[in-house]
C-alpha cells in the first residue's frame, strides 16, 4: 500500500516535472530573444561583436615596447635595497627564499651570498623615485614615468618568459601582443604594417630573439610583425629588381591577384585572401618605407637628444628614432628588442654598457613624443622578461658579481598613453626578493595595456580549435592604480 502511495506521488511529480520543464524551456527561449548573438557562429575573420574599433574611447592609440631582452637587473637600476649592501656577502635567509625554485645555473651553488649593488642611487622627481646612477637620462624624465616595481612572472628561463610576455602563454604558437592589437584595432596607416619589429644588440651576454615572438599565431597572417633590419634595405625584398619599374609591378600584381582570386573562389582559404592583401601592402610600402626611414630631415636637436648613434643603423638609438617615426606614421605596435642584459657574471661592467646603449635614447623617445604632443596617445613600455636575483651567481668579490634569473619581482616602466605619470607603483621587501605591495602579474600587465588601448581584454577573442582564445588566457585584472 505504502508503495502505491509513493508511486502515486511520483506520478504527480512526473507530470508536474514535465509541465515545469516546458515552462522552464519556454522562458529560456523567451530569454534568448534578448541575446542577439547567442547562436551566431564565428563568421568572417573578426569574432562576432567585434568591429575593428576600440570597445570604448582609448587613452592610447599606439604602443612602443622597448623590450630589454635578457632581463636587466632591477636591483642595480630601480629597486634600491640598502640592506643588500649592508649584508653584502651574507647568505640569503631561507625565510626570504621560502624554497622557491632556482634555475639550473645556481641551484647547485653551496651558498647564496647577497650582493649589494655597486652603483649609487638617488631620488628624483615628484615621486621621489630611486634611480641608479647608470640611468641619468631616465632619472631626468622620471616625472613622466610610471615605474612598476612589482611585476612578476611564472617563467624562470628566457625563452618561456619572453614568449609569455609577448604572447600571454609560455609555449609558442599564440599570437603576439602586436598581432592581437592589429587584429583588434586594425591598421591606422594602410601603407605600413600595423606591427613592426626592430632588433639591436648590446655587448653584454645575449639571448636570442626569434620570429615566433612576433608571430600572428592562429590569427590571420596579415597581423604578423614585420621586421625592419639595419642594412641598406630596412625591409628585405621590398625593393623592385632593377629590371622592374612600378608600373610593371602593378600589372604583375593585378594579374597575380586575378589568379589568387580564382583560387580563393575554388578553395575558400582565407590565407589566399591574406596573401593578396600582403602583396598590396608591400606594393604601397615601396613608397611609404623610404619616406619613413629617411632620417636626413631630422632636426639637429633630435640627433643630439637621441645621441649621434641614432644615425648608425642597427643601434638601439637608431631603432628608438625609427620607432618614433613609425609610430608617428600610424604603426600601432612597434616592438624593439635590445639584447645583452643577461648578466650572470661580470654584471657591473655588462650592465653599465647596456645602460650606455639604452638610457639616453629611451629617455629621448619619451621626450620626443612629448614635445610633439604624441605622448598622450602613445604608450611607451620599458622592461625585460623577469628580474635578477639579490644573491650572487658565481664568485662574489668586492667589485664584481653576477645575478641569476628572478621571476618573483622586477621593474618595468611605462610612460604616456593614459598611465599615471610620475608615480612608483608596488613595492618589494627589503631584500628585493618578494613583492609586499600591489603585485602585477604578466596577465594583469596585458589586461591593462589592452584597456589603455580601449579594448576589453575579455572581449578581444578569437575562435580557434573549438574555443575562444584571449591574450590574457582566463586571467588578468586591470591595474587601476596606474591608470591616469
Amino acid at each position, binding site marked *: 500500500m505504502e508503495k502505491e502511495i509513493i508511486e502515486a506521488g511520483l506520478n504527480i511529480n512526473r507530470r508536474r516535472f514535465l509541465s515545469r520543464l516546458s515552462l522552464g524551456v519556454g522562458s529560456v527561449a523567451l530569454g534568448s530573444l534578448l541575446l542577439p548573438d547567442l547562436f551566431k557562429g564565428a563568421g568572417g575573420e573578426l569574432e562576432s561583436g567585434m568591429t575593428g574599433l576600440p570597445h570604448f574611447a582609448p587613452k592610447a592609440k599606439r604602443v612602443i615596447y622597448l623590450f630589454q631582452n635578457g632581463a636587466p637587473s632591477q636591483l642595480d637600476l630601480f629597486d634600491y635595497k640598502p*640592506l643588500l649592501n649592508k649584508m653584502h656577502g651574507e647568505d640569503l635567509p631561507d625565510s626570504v627564499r621560502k624554497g622557491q625554485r632556482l634555475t639550473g645555473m645556481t641551484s647547485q651553488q653551496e651558498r647564496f651570498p647577497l650582493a649589494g649593488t655597486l652603483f649609487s642611487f638617488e631620488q628624483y622627481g615628484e615621486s621621489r623615485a630611486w634611480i641608479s646612477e647608470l640611468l641619468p637620462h631616465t632619472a631626468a624624465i622620471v616625472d613622466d614615468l610610471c615605474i612598476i616595481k612589482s611585476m612578476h612572472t611564472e617563467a624562470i628561463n628566457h625563452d618561456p618568459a619572453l614568449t609569455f610576455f609577448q604572447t600571454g602563454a609560455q609555449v609558442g604558437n599564440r599570437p603576439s601582443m602586436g598581432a592581437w592589437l592589429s587584429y583588434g584595432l586594425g591598421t*591606422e596607416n594602410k*601603407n605600413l604594417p600595423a606591427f613592426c619589429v626592430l632588433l639591436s644588440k648590446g655587448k653584454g651576454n645575449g639571448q636570442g630573439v626569434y620570429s615566433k615572438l612576433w608571430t600572428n599565431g592562429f590569427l590571420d597572417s596579415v597581423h604578423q610583425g614585420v621586421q625592419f633590419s639595419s642594412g641598406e634595405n630596412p625591409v628585405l625584398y621590398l625593393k623592385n629588381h632593377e629590371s622592374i619599374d612600378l608600373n610593371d609591378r602593378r600589372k604583375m600584381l593585378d594579374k597575380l591577384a586575378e589568379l589568387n582570386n580564382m583560387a580563393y573562389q575554388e578553395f575558400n582559404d582565407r590565407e589566399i585572401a591574406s596573401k593578396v592583401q600582403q602583396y598590396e601592402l608591400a606594393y604601397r610600402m615601396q613608397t*611609404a618605407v623610404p*619616406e619613413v626611414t629617411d632620417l636626413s630631415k631630422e632636426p639637429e636637436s633630435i640627433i643630439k637628444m637621441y645621441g649621434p648613434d641614432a644615425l648608425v643603423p642597427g643601434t638601439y638609438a637608431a631603432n628608438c628614432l625609427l620607432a618614433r617615426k613609425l609610430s608617428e606614421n600610424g604603426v600601432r605596435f612597434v616592438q624593439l628588442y635590445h639584447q645583452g642584459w643577461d648578466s650572470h657574471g661580470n654584471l657591473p661592467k655588462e650592465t653599465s654598457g647596456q645602460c650606455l646603449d639604452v638610457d639616453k635614447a629611451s629617455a629621448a623617445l619619451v621626450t620626443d613624443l612629448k*614635445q610633439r604632443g604624441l605622448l598622450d596617445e602613445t604608450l611607451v613600455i620599458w622592461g625585460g622578461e623577469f628580474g635578477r636575483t639579490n644573491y650572487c651567481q658565481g664568485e662574489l668579490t668586492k667589485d664584481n658579481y653576477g645575478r641569476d634569473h628572478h621571476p618573483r619581482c622586477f621593474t618595468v616602466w611605462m610612460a604616456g598613453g593614459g598611465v599615471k605619470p610620475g608615480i612608483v607603483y608596488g613595492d618589494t621587501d627589503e631584500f628585493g626578493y618578494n613583492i609586499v605591495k600591489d603585485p602585477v602579474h604578466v596577465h594583469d600587465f596585458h589586461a591593462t595595456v589592452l584597456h589603455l588601448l580601449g579594448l576589453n581584454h575579455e572581449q578581444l577573442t578569437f575562435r580557434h580549435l573549438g574555443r575562444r582564445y584571449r591574450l590574457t588566457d582566463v586571467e588578468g585584472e586591470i591595474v587601476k592604480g596606474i591608470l591616469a
Partner: protein
Amino acid sequence: MWKTIAFNIVFALNCLLAFLLVFESGLSVPVWLQVFGRMHPLLLHIPIGLLLLYAVIELFFPLRKIQDQAVDLKDALLLSGALTISLTALMGLFLTNEPGYEPETIALHKWGGAAISFLLMAWYHWREHIRRRPLLNKTVAALSIALVSFTGHQGGSITHGENFLLGPILPKEDDPANLPFDEAVVFTHMAMPIIKQKCISCHNEKKAKGELIMTTAEQMLQGGKNGKLWDTTAQDLGSMIKRIHLPLSHDDHMPPKGKPQLTDQEIAILEAWIRGGSNMTIKVSELDKSDTLAILAAAMFSNDQREDVYDLEAASAATVESLNNFYRAVKPLAENSPALSVSFFGREQFTPDQLLELKPVSQQVVEMDLSRMPIKDEDLAIIAQFPHLRKLNLNFTDIGGEGLAALKGLSYLKELSLAGTGAQVSFLSVLKDLPGLKKIFLWNTPVSNEEIKALRQIHKNIVFESGFDGDTLVLKLTPPIIDHEQFVLSEPTPLKLKHNINGVEIRYTLDGTEPDSIRSPVFHSDIAIDNPVELKTKAYRKGWISSDIASSRFYRSGLKPQSVKLLVQPDPYYAGSRERTLFDLELGGRSLGSGKWLGYSGMQALDVWLDFESPAQGSSFTLSCFSDNRRAFPPESITIWYGNDSLQMKKLQTLQLKTPAKSDQTGSIAITMDLPKEPFRYLRAQARPISRIPEWSSAKGKPGWLYIDEIILK
C-alpha cells in the same frame, strides 16, 4: 488553482532570470523592455513588504492554533512575494543594462536580489517541509529578512549615494568631492585631512611621540624634539617628507611599520604643498593651473566628468567608410561613438581636396592629424570649418603662422601641435580666441624660450610645451663611415667617406699618422687612391667634439698566381672559400665568422702553394691577418720558398715575429716581406700560429689562432 498557475509563473520567471544572469554579457535590451526595466524602483517595495510581513509572522507568531488558521493567508503572502520579487529582479536586470551603472557598484545588489528571488521560490515549494521544522523555519525567515535588508540597503546606496541612510548621524567629514572648488583651502581641505588620518593617532596632546603634536597648524609649525617638520627650501623638504620616503624597514620611516601608510597621492599632496611654501591659507582656486597642487586638487574636487562627452549626431557608417582611402583614415573614436578622428599619411599624395572632401562629416571630426603634410596657411581656413575639433596636429607642416587666425572659431579646441612649423609668436595672438585650449606644442618653432615664458604669463590656463633644445649640449661625433667594400684595389679608385650628420667636415691621412683638425686634408669626392695606404679619418664639426678615428688599410694587388693550393686545410669552422679566399681582393671585416677568414690553430699552419705557370717577378709579399689580443694573434713565424722546379725549391727566408705585447694594435694587421730578385714559377709560404698565448692574456698558455683573409703580391 490560482496558486498552481502563480507558482508556475514564478518558476518560469526564475528560469528566465537564471538564464539571463548566465548570459548577461551578451544581453541586449530592446527599447520597449527598458520601460519595463525602469519600473524596478516602483515595484520593488511590494515584495519587500510582503516578504517582511510573512517572515515576521513565521518568526513571532509560532502558536500552532493561529498558524493553522492562517495557513492559506500565509501561503498567499509567500507566493505573491515570490511572484513580485521575481518580476522585480528581472526588471532590475534590464535596468542594469542601461548606461550609467558601474558593474562593480551594483554587483552586490544584483546578486542579492537574484538570491532572494530563488530563495522565495524554493521556500514556497518546500514550505510545508520547512514549517514542520520550527528551527529551520525561523532560520529561513531570519535569513530572508537579513538578505532583504542588505539588498535593499545596497539598492538605496545606488540611488541615493553611499552612506545615505546613516549619513545624518555619522560624524560629518569635509568630503572634498562635495566642496565647491572655489572654496577649498589647500591646507585645510587637502593637507590636514591626511595628517588627521595618518599621523594624529601618535602625535596628539595625549600621546606626543617625539614631542610632536600635529593637531593644529601652530603646533605643527613648532616641530618636535628633532626640530622643524619641514623646510620649504631644502632639497628633501625637511624631516617629515624625508622620513616618509625612507624605506619601510628603516627605523625612522613614518608612519612606522605596521601603521597605515600614506598613499602615493597623499605623499604628492604633502610634498607639493610644502614645496609651494607651506601656505596655510591659499585656496585651490588661487593656484596656478599648471601647479602640481592644482592638478592634484582638480582630481580631488572636480565633480564634472573629465572625459569628453560628444553630443554629436553620428554620420552614417557608409559615409564614414567611403571617406577612407590609402592616405586618409577616418575612424570613430570607439564603437558607438559619433566622434571621428582623421589622419593623413603620405606627403606626396596630399592635396587640399582631401580636406574638402571631409565636408559631410565636418560636424563629427574631433581629432585631426595633418602632421608632415604640405598644408599651407590658407588651408587653415578649411580646417576652421570643423567646429568640434578637440585636437589638431599640424607638426612639420608648411604653415608659417599667418593662417592661424582662421582657427579662432574653434571653441572646443583643446590641443594644438605646431612643432616644426614656421609659426612665429606674433601669430599666436589667436590663443586668446581659443577658450578651450589646454595645451600647445611649440618645439622647434621660431618662438623663443623667452617668448614662451611671456606667453605663459598671459595664458595661465594653457600648458606650453617647448621641448628639447640641444643648443648648449656638446656631444661627440661618431667616426666617419669608410664606404668601401673592396680594400684590395686592382686600379686607382676614388676614396669614399661619408658621415650621417649633415655639415660634418671629414679629415684624413693616408700615411698612418693621426689626423688633426689643422694640417690633415679635408675629404672631398675626387680623391683617388692608388698605392697601398693606411687610411685614418676623423669627423669634425662646430659645436661637437671631434670623433674617434676610423681606419682602414688599402692594398694594391699586382701579381696573381694561376693556381693556388692549400697544403694544410684550415679549421672547418673558419674555412672561408678555402683557396679562393686568399686572392679574392676582399678583406674579411670585423667578424671572424663572415666566411672571409681562414683560421689555423695549434699544429695546423697556413701552408700555401702558388703556381704562376711561367716565371714571374715581384717585389713584395703581404699577409693580411687579424689580431684581437685575446685569441687571435699575428703568426709566430713566416717562411717563404721559391723556385722554378717544384722539387727543388729554395728557402728565401724565415721571418720570426716578436711575441705579441698587450699594447699591440688590434684589428687587421699586414705583414710584408720582400720577394726574391730573380724570377720564379712557384712560391710556397708557411705561417705558423703562435703556440702559446702570452702570459698577460686571460687565455694564457693555450695555442693561439691565426686568421688570414688575403695574400697580396706586388
